[in-house]
């Protein structure tokens, strides 16, 4: 069977086209189509969409939309015209997008609260002031950092402009529209997949088996709450995001409590009373003349370094991180197995630790039919060991590739990796992608056969990463890369083109 995995080079975002079989029997699967921008390759999203249409002959057997982040779905909206002409037979999404699932609904509400609180916190940080020295830089950097993480859910102007202030808690229209559009796009009803259970052997895709690894069903794992994650704590965290948003609303209004309260409606009053710690009669408003006299020490110039006006907002970076983490952890993580020889192509989207760890849960056992009859149990470590192509999670950020129970289990001699990333876009946002230690380990594990969508093979001349290895290692890597570009029997061949990178295998 012929197998091709194509990584498009549209910048910081994912768009992969898998093709199994050839000619009339070719089956095309598109996994995501998005970008946060491209400065290195200059590849436009429209070129990508055109190529998808041309390569598939205008028909996709399956569209996989892994999670609701701009860098995975923006193309479905920006290239709506091209995609409108592509026939999509079926659409897969994670169970977390299923509006009839009550757990999923809870997660959505939580996410909405987080977006709202994070946006208000960023605004509060931007509007604050009066601090000493370098604290201003820290505060501004923090606010900017939160804004940039929020870019993943679409930017605020987009949300505010179209839907008004009420949309603060909503995802930007761009992301929402793209998700909804995809959900309705298939000829068949969109399927929402849950992890574990049976390995899928769709009859329209002969010779391939698909394992659904994540997202986990346990909301705690989606929050990466780890071993100590207590269900009560989860509830608490979920509620706190909402309460914090209320609190920030009052803070942002910058009005005395009485005046603010008087204007509020009954529901807001109830919420407000809940988030205010003491009875209002104990309050001495910061604007009250008494304050400068009674708390002169707090406001004195020589003690400016000890003020705490904005410290409570520093925790707001948590909201943005929590949000990003949660959405990444709702990634539909899939493993494609070529049944004939057991090779695996691993596409974990942007799964973070909680998602990866859940693949190893005791219940995650797949029963599959053996070639010679009978059944066989498959677990995550088997799949990782047989992985020959790993689509590196979350643009090779530090925390989206599990070490001991992830990358270190991938030991196949043919292992190669794709990193969809644009380092210059990431660097502009001050994001560390690809993360140095991970990139280094990936190069080691694959003998240099890691292709980045922005720059191709890692090279000794690379100003950032050339110093990772001594010359002798680079020579070895170059030789492995050279071999990978040649056509060899029963081995994958990598072709780095301007628009995309192809990994092709013809199994014998």
């Amino acid at each position, binding site marked *: 069977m012929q197998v091709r995995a194509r990584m498009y080079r549209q910048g910081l975002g994912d768009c992969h086209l898998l093709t199994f079989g050839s000619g009339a029997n070719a089956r095309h699967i598109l996994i995501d189509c998005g970008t946060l921008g491209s400065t290195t390759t200059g590849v436009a999203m429209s070129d990508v969409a055109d190529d998808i249409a041309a390569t598939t002959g205008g028909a996709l057997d399956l569209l996989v939309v892994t999670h609701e982040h701009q860098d995975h779905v923006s193309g479905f909206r920006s290239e709506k015209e091209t995609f409108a002409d592509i026939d999509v037979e079926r659409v897969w999404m994670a169970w977390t997008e299923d509006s009839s699932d009550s757990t999923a609904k809870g997660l959505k509400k939580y996410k909405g609260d987080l977006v709202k609180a994070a946006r208000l916190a960023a605004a509060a940080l931007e509007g604050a002031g009066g601090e000493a020295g370098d604290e201003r830089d*820290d505060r501004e*950097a*923090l606010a900017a*950092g939160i804004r940039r*993480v929020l870019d993943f859910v679409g930017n605020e102007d987009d949300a505010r402009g179209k839907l008004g202030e009420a949309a603060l808690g909503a995802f930007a229209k761009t992301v929402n529209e793209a998700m909804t559009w995809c959900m309705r796009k298939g000829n068949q009803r969109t399927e929402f997949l849950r992890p574990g259970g049976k390995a899928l052997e769709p009859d329209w895709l002969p010779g391939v088996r698909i394992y659904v690894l994540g997202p986990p069903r346990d909301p705690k794992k989606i929050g990466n709450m*780890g071993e100590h994650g*207590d269900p*009560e*704590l989860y509830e*608490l*965290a979920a*509620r*706190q995001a909402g309460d914090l948003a209320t*609190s920030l609303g*009052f*803070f942002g209004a910058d009005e005395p*409590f009485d005046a603010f309260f008087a204007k509020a409606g009954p529901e807001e009053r109830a919420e407000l009373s*809940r*988030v*205010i*710690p*003491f*009875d209002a009669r*104990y*309050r*001495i*408003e910061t604007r009250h003349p008494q*304050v400068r006299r*009674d*708390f002169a*020490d*707090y406001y004195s110039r020589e003690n400016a*370094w*000890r*003020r*705490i*006006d904005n*410290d*409570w907002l520093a*925790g707001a970076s*948590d909201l*943005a*991180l929590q949000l*990003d*983490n949660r959405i990444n952890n709702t990634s539909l993580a899939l493993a494609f197995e070529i049944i004939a020889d057991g090779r695996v192509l691993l596409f974990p989207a942007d799964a*973070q630790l909680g998602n990866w760890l859940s693949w190893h849960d005791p219940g995650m056992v797949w029963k599959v039919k053996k070639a010679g009859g009978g059944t066989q149990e498959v677990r995550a470590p088997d799949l990782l060991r047989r992985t020959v192509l790993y689509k590196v999670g979350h643009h090779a*950020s*530090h*925390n989206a590739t599990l070490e001991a129970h992830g990358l270190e289990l991938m030991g196949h001699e043919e292992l190669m990796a794709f990193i969809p990333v644009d380092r210059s876009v990431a660097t502009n946002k*001050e994001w*560390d*992608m690809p*993360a*140095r*230690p991970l990139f*280094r380990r990936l190069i080691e594990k694959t003998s240099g056969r890691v292709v980045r969508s922005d720059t191709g093979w890692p090279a000794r001349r690379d100003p*950032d990463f*050339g*110093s*990772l290895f001594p010359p002798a290692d680079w020579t070895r890597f170059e030789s492995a890369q050279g071999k990978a570009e040649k056509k060899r029997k029963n081995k994958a061949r990598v072709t780095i083109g301007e628009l995309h990178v192809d990994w092709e295998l013809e199994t014998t």
Partner: protein
Amino acid sequence: MPMPQPGAYRSEPAYRSLRGYAIDPSLAQRLETAPVSAITFKVPWEQFERPGPVGEYLEVIDYDPATRCFYEAVDLDDPQLLAQDGLPPSEGTPQFHQQMVYAVASLTIHNFERALGRKIFWAHGPPPAGARAENDSHYVQRLRIYPHALRDANAYYSPPKKALLFGYFPASTDDPGEHLPGGMVFTCLSHDVVAHEITHALLDGLHPHFIDASNHDVLAFHEAFADIVALFQHFTFPEILRHQIARTRGDIRRHQSLLGELAGEFGRSSGMHSALRDAIGHRDRKTREWKPREPDPRDYKNLSEPHDRGAILVAAIFDAFLSIYESRVAGVLRLATGGSGVLPEGAIHPDLVEQLATAATKSASHVLAMCVRALDYCPPVDITFGEYLRAIITADCDLVRDDDLGYRVAFVEAFRRRGIYPRDLRTLSAESLRWAGPGNDERRPSPKLLEGLPSLRKFAAEHSHTHGRQALFELEREMRRAMHAWLLQRLAGPGGGKDAQFLGLERGQRFEVHALRVANRVGPDGNLLRQVIIEILQSRTERLVAGDRKSKKIEVQGGCTLVANLETLQISYCIRKSATSRTRLERQRAFLAGAGSLFSTYFASPKAKEPVARLHRGQG
């Protein structure tokens, strides 16, 4: 005939009585603990500078930035409050919160000073305008306490602001437990949280580099130490102690009690300190029954998250305490049971409770003293649990010659059971754990180096005649400067290479005399131990990946803690972390390469300044 002095009959009281929650407000909600939920703290009397309270060590400022308001500062000297031991406990009155944080913080400082045997200092403030970054002349008299600083289930010590920031948050609406559903939870009302946070500040004042994570143990040590101090403070409250001794019939090891639990129920609702709950014992998820935790020698090797790891150390020290307590009460129990040592069913006699409580208080205060004293015997940077054990044992050997009650054995045993070993020791005994002294240290100082010691006697004499913390701060700084100048000359002179090696320094590189302290301790036999502790530090910039000049810069610190005996004019110990050690550099690299989080992907620099805040949020 002299005129009678008005008011001559009065004298300053020794203590100020202040009411507060014994552990936290949740105790008042449970029938069983309600009678002991409120207690009266006896804190050292002091003259306040102004309401706040603002005293010698502390300055409470009740600013609530999230809701843009202040709360009036409590005046504890108001006769109305003096007459009734301060305000009665109340969650709804901010002034009581101010009283509570002040009381617990003062008490903790007091207990810490008693164990340490000298006055404490907060870490120095930011350098004066125009001075170099390492300038440490800024004396900070008072730690600031902000009881309502955060709108978050968090509380932390801020090293850059020398302040404690406490948060508040609405309790879970569906919590069936102690809190009013949807009511507000205040971290500043938890004895354990306050004691924990102020201990971070106390430790930072003594060892400012213990927040630089250079191995898995450093931050874990900070957490554990803060927990240990908070935990042993429970044994200083007679009401709680007697109540819980009676309830567990003296068997603290095998029964859940408030004595072996930190921020118990309260901690659960906030997510803080949950690890510690598990360290000593835990409630089975299915049967809801509490079981003591069996030590697992693999834990120290396997757990890396600072709280999990810190819990191992807390459990080890609590275990040592239990062994000491049990051996102390064995005789009383035999007496009370006609020799069998097995108590009959039912409640135990109040006299027995009293005896057991006395033994528990004594054991706890001894163990706490050992733990605090050991801080003078720690390396100045890069601490590990194994080294802390060595510090405990060495400090105790110095002061208490005869270990007739088996304290040291109890410690060694408790650490061994959890797999905590110093890296370079083959055998584990009180004797082998003791730091190498002049007799068995493989590196020796030159005789010239020892010639610097007599000058320390003069310093010590001056030190003992200096009053006031600020004067002591200035004096120590002056001495450090003198010591630095002298050492600089010494290391440049003949035999200086050998001395640099002895001190764990790289010759010719800048170094700092980081600390110089006088410690006078009295042993149980009335023996006096007069010591000077000198910490010398050197720092070097390296790359995270060896040979990779593009990789992140890392700071590698080294140096030593010198313990010098003022009687014999000998260097008793030189506790080294060699600045030039390659193996240590590699260990630090390996540790830092493994560290990182989503936070580090998206936020490059800010907030690195608040290590404790991040630690408590789990962004370590």
